[in-house]
Each structure stands twice: as structure tokens, then as C-alpha cells.
């Protein structure tokens, strides 16, 4: 197994952990972390898989991932602003449908 | 195996050991102040040894100077961050751990 493919499978693992955490947690900050893990896993699969087919560096997915990382940090920053506004208004860091009696 | 390679491997292994010792100190030392002491000192020495090993391999003087510059900058940065952590801990009145208090401190941290 080439080392590129190993990292693609690592990305698969990150995606799985991300989805698991995203559904399990109710705290919004933890959900945001899980969402970011899912994103990183996707980037790893994208680059690792395309390079494992060629056996050398593939610049096109790398450029796409570079764009993706910058957009991901913008989305994270926006989500944090929203979470803080929500927390300031309601004193909770969870969504109302997750604040059940449990 | 040439003499250069032996010297390089010696320096690299010694540097890695220094990092291990620093991390061990981070885990085992009882309070904030002693932990920074372990991290900032041991890791700087470890990085220095690794930089020395890498310098033996480079052809151009410019590259060697760049590596030395990295070492210098990391030393200033780690001295600064160590100072800031200790300063902040002092502001927050985090107490120094006296000898013999280690067990109690570790227990209270696990809670």
C-alpha cells in the first residue's frame, strides 16, 4: 500500500469520527470541532486518493484543498461568531431541540 | 558508514532524547513553574542538537545561516512564551508546589 493511500484511509477514519462526534454531541463548540474533523478528512481523501493513482504529487487537488482550507477557516470563524451571539442571548451553548429533559 | 554520518546520527538521537526528557518533565513535574522549566530548556537544547546535525549536511552557507536563525528565533520565542505563562500563573496566584506535595497535587488534578 502506497503512503498516499494510507493517508487517504486516515482521512476516511477522520470522516467517520467527525460524523460520530457531530451527531453525538450537543455542545455547539464540540460540534464545530467535529465538523472541522470531517473537513480535514475530506481534504486528506481528496489529495491522498488522487496521488495514489498517479504515484506522484498531483497539483490540481492540492490547489483545490488550499482553497478549501481558507474557506473552512472562514466558515469556522463565522460559526464561532454565531455561537457566541447565541450563547449571549440564551445563556446556552446548545440548541433548544437538544435541551430536552434528558 | 562515514564519520560524518555517525556524528550526525549521534546528534540527532541526542536531540530526540532531549525532547523526550522535556516531555517527561512536562508530564511528571508537579506545578506550572517547574513544567515550563523542563519544556523551555530541554527542548531548546534538543532543537539545537538537531539543527547542528542538519548543518553538517548542507552545502551552502546561506542555508546553514537560515537553520541557525530558526534556532535563535525559537529560543527567543520559547523564552518569551515561558515567561508569559509563568507571569500569568503568578498573576492568577497559582501556588508553587512544595516538596512532598506531589501526590496530593496529582490527585487533585485528576478530578
Amino acid at each position, binding site marked *: *500500500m502506497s*503512503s498516499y493511500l*494510507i*493517508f487517504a484511509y*486516515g482521512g*476516511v*477514519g*477522520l470522516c*467517520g*469520527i467527525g460524523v*460520530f*462526534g457531530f*451527531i*453525538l*454531541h450537543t*455542545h455547539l*463548540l*464540540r460540534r*464545530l*470541532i*467535529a465538523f472541522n*474533523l470531517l473537513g*480535514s478528512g475530506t481534504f486528506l481523501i481528496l*489529495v491522498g486518493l488522487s496521488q495514489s*493513482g498517479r504515484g*506522484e*504529487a498531483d*497539483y*490540481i487537488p*492540492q*490547489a483545490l*484543498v*488550499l*482553497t478549501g*482550507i*481558507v*474557506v473552512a*477557516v*472562514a*466558515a469556522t*470563524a*463565522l460559526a*464561532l*461568531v*454565531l*455561537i*457566541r*451571539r447565541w*450563547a*449571549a442571548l*440564551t*445563556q446556552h*451553548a446548545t440548541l433548544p431541540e437538544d435541551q430536552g429533559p*434528558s | 558508514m562515514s564519520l560524518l554520518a555517525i556524528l550526525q546520527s549521534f546528534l540527532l538521537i541526542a536531540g530526540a532524547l532531549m525532547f523526550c526528557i522535556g516531555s517527561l518533565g512536562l508530564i511528571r513535574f508537579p506545578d506550572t513553574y517547574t513544567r515550563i522549566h523542563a519544556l523551555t530548556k530541554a527542548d531548546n537544547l534538543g532543537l539545537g542538537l538537531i539543527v547542528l546535525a542538519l548543518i553538517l549536511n548542507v552545502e551552502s552557507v546561506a542555508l546553514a545561516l537560515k537553520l541557525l536563525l530558526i534556532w535563535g528565533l525559537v529560543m*527567543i520565542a520559547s523564552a518569551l512564551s515561558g*515567561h*508569559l505563562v509563568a507571569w*500569568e500563573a503568578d*498573576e*492568577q496566584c497559582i501556588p508553587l508546589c512544595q516538596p512532598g506535595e506531589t501526590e496530593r497535587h496529582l490527585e487533585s488534578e485528576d478530578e
Partner: protein
Amino acid sequence: MNELIDLTLVCILLGLASLSLFTQSLFRAVMFFILLGLILALVWIRLDAPDIALAEAAIGAGITGILLLDALAHLRATSNTPPQLRQLKQPRFWLALISGAGVILLLALAISEPLAPAVALDLQVSENLTNSGVTHPITAILLNFRSYDTLLEVAVLVLAALVAVTLRQSDEHPVVNEYLPNPLLHACLKLFFPMIFLVSMYLLWAGAAQPGGAFQAGAVLAAAFVLFYLVGLKTQLAQNDIYLKGGWIFGLALFVLVGSMPLLYGQPFLTYPDSQAGIFILLIELGLTLSIGWILFSMFLLSQSSPLQKKDSP
């Protein structure tokens, strides 16, 4: 031997991901996440992608870490964060477990099939590289071949900043320019600032031929701005809305302006004349660097609803 390194890195990656999701303390979760970003930078090096490694170290670990830690301090003050319990009897746990396992299974099945690319895009890249104005393929793709992507990406950044400024609490007290009153911090940062700017501009310049470019340079610049803010220098500029918003749209406006210039000569939008392409790309990248740095910094600034507390000395 190399596979051993890769396997170790993947194990560390997955371990850190699990730790960052399932530790009890939120602070530790954020710390593990920052650590994950640094390990990811190493992974990108192993994947022969130094550009992404630079961006991941500066953006993924640096800027995201600052933002998360900052939000954490704020959330701790205002909202009660109940400890996360492993609720084995809840349907939510089983739903999460099945979904996670399903995603892993499906993706693993999907990538076990060998790829059969229909178009050899990489050949087209290497054929046209000589006409692109730069010699580094990634910069050529980002700013010449697929410059629409980059244009829209900057538009997304501006949009995110605009939404953030709209959500700013109108009733809150303005951000007070208080700072960490530490003399050593000031002295060292005065030494570091010129070097950080130099590194940022070098990354921009080197992007034409080596790994580097506008995104990495912008992230380094944003870090310099944040440090500026923490020692309380020159942040009056950021209090003024005209400078704040002007800085955001500067890069986008310059991009559109330079991209429209070929229209005067009957060429399509965003096509550069072959002989001048290098200058065009450098100009656009300079605007992008300044704007990306400024936008990332203002996202940090806008989320500051409570002023930095100056600690009372005991």
C-alpha cells in the same frame, strides 16, 4: 520504513481526533484540536504538499486555534456547559455510532476501487505552465488557470466578514484597547514584528516559483495583526468602520479591476496577456494577501464582545 512513519502519523491523527471529541474538558478538546492541526501539517509534508502544509500550520493550527480559544473563554463566562456524558442508553448514541461506522465503510469501499481519470488535467497544467507567468504549478492553477475559484473564495471571505459585522451586538460597549501589560512581551514583539512582515512578504514573493503564495502570506499577516492587537498597538485603525470594511474589499476590488483590464482589449475576463501575466498575478496576490490578513484578523476582532481583561495584581 517510510510506511511505518505514515502509519504512526495516521494513528496519532485518529487518536488526537478521538481525544478532541471525547475529553470531558472543553479546553482540552480545543488543545487536542490545535495539536491535530500541527500533526496534519506533518501529514501534508508526507503527502508531498508543502503548500498545504504551510497553510495548515498557519491557518488550521494558528488562526483556528486563536479563534476557538477566544470563543472558549467567552462561552465559559456566559453559558453553563454541562459535562458531556456517554449516554449509552440514548438513541442518539446508537444513531451516531451507526452513521459514523456507515460513513467509514462506504468511503473505504469507495476508495478501494482504482481511479480511472477520464481527462489528464495534469498534462494540460504542465503544457501551459510556461505561459502562466509563474513557475510554481499551484500558484499557476490558483491565480491563472482557475482564477475564478480564487476570486469567489475571496468573495466568500468578504461575505463571512460582513455577516460577522452584522451580528455584532449593537448594545455592547466598544472594544476597549486594553492589553497584556508585560514589558518583555512588548520588547520581544518589537523585535519580531519586522521579521513577521518580512516572512509574509517573502512567502508572497516566493509563491511564484516555490511553495508559498497569497493564502499563506495572508495567514502570517493575520497572526501579526493579532499580536499587534494583544500588545495594544495601532488598533484604533480597526475601530474605524471605513478602514475595517475598506480593508476587506481591497483585495476583491483589485482582483476584479485587474481581471477586467483584458476586457478593454477584447479579451475575456480574467485572462492575462502571456508576457505580462507574472506582474498581474503578483499584483493580485499582493491585494489578496493584505485583504486575507485583514479579514482573518477582523474575524478575531469582531468576536471580541468583551474587552480583554487586564488582570488585577494581587
